[in-house]
């Protein structure tokens, strides 16, 4: 009951901030530019994939953490009203994830729809983007609630982003290179499940069937599971990636001294 009320006012506030519109405009501009430079729909999707996998985790984790740090006094005030803590947590969480997801979806979809593409063609790009948004905002909330010091919290957020988008792939490559004499399929599958960005990449690659760009983990995944099972497994693993940080963050929020 009070959850929906909090979400309502939260959205009313956030949709008036400039950063939401800037975020939507960014995705619109990049997609539009890719079309202008002569790409057809499929090639634009392939390029957008890399933008989505890099930019969404970064913006979601940084904005999510900053948002929670900046809302500290507001959280205190609302907790002095007859409001449940769990309602407030869910309200704040939706207050970031919904605007970010809507801005991303609109920004990407408009250039495609203007050219008469069907919404189905970008469906998986949008789903992956939204899943990554929610996962990284959940991580950001967990961080912001665990570290009092905002500089520390934001620093760790950036390190996490760098880890999942860049360093992790390096580690996998290093393992593949060092143990090239051994069968590596299963360990690599397990390793890629432990990284939400890898999961997002696999999900997109399996769907758009761009095997040339698939990389080692993607190729292994497809050979091992086939497309459909691969997709279901990667979506399930991503949902776990969503549930665990969300649950940890919620638990910290319920126990916290404000």
């Amino acid at each position: 009951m009070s959850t929906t009320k909090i979400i309502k006012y939260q959205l009313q506030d956030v949709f008036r901030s400039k950063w939401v519109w800037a975020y939507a405009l960014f995705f619109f501009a990049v997609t539009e530019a890719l079309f202008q430079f002569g790409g057809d729909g499929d090639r634009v999707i392939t390029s957008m994939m890399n933008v989505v996998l890099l930019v969404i985790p970064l913006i979601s984790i940084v904005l999510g953490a900053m948002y929670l740090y900046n809302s500290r006094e507001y959280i205190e005030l609302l907790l002095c009203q007859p409001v449940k803590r769990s309602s407030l947590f869910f309200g704040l969480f939706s207050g970031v994830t919904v605007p970010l997801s809507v801005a991303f979806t609109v920004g990407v979809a408009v250039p495609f729809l203007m050219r008469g593409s069907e919404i189905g063609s970008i469906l998986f790009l949008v789903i992956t983007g939204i899943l990554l948004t929610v996962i990284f905002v959940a991580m950001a909330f967990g961080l912001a609630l665990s570290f009092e010091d905002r500089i520390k919290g934001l620093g760790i957020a950036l390190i996490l982003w760098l880890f999942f988008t860049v360093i992790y792939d390096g580690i996998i490559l290093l393992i593949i290179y060092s143990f090239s004499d051994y069968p590596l399929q299963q360990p690599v599958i397990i390793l890629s499940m432990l990284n939400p960005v890898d999961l997002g990449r696999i999900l997109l690659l399996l769907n758009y069937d761009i095997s040339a760009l698939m990389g080692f983990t993607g190729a292994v995944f497809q050979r091992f599971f086939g497309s459909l099972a691969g997709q279901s497994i990667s979506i399930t693993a991503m949902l776990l990636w969503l549930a665990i940080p969300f649950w940890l963050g919620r638990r910290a929020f319920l126990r916290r001294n404000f």
Partner: protein
Amino acid sequence: MITVKQLKKRFAKLEALKGVDVSFEPGEVTAVLGPNGAGKTTLIKSILGLVRPDSGIITFDGKELNGDYTYRERIGYMPQQARYPENLTVKEILEMIRDLRNYPEVQDEELITMFNLQSEMNKPFKTLSGGNKQKMSAVLAFLFCPDVLFLDEPTAGLDPIASSKLKDKIITEKKKGKTIILTSHIMSEIQELADKVVYLLEGNLHFVTTVDSLLDDTGQPNLERALASKLEGVAA
């Protein structure tokens, strides 16, 4: 109205409250005083449910607090620094809090007119001056005619006119039988408003006394001097 028994709270390194017993009665203004780090904020936040105490019992109107949040319907809180969603207007924020409280029938909008806030109603919160933010926060604390009022440095940042209007309002509400808990650094203000002084020191209750008897016992002309002479010899 509110009783606190053997309240203890420890943060990582700091023992903020070491077993405090205190009570707040209707029709009284109680000032909670003490040096920085004495546990004032922790005590108030424990009653408000923002801080989870390690042990001890807090009762509100005879009922023990056990994680239920509905008792806050009867509390008005004016924080030292208020921050609301930046892009919402004053009107929308008032509407939000009314909505969260399920639109109580009896509402006290007197402070809106007293502070001339009508002209600020359609301005976004982030464009308000510090004083107007403080006024809005006072309006919200008194709006739902709560039985208990927590006022944390209520006059800080207010101009003298608004400040004296707010003090008048506090006295009016006290006479209506409200329980009022006040913190302030301005001793003359406490002398003017408070009936009782609760003095905390290093997480312990140092003393509780009425303002009048504090002045009588020490024979000093004002509260600041009286407190100073009472605390002489204690590292403050």
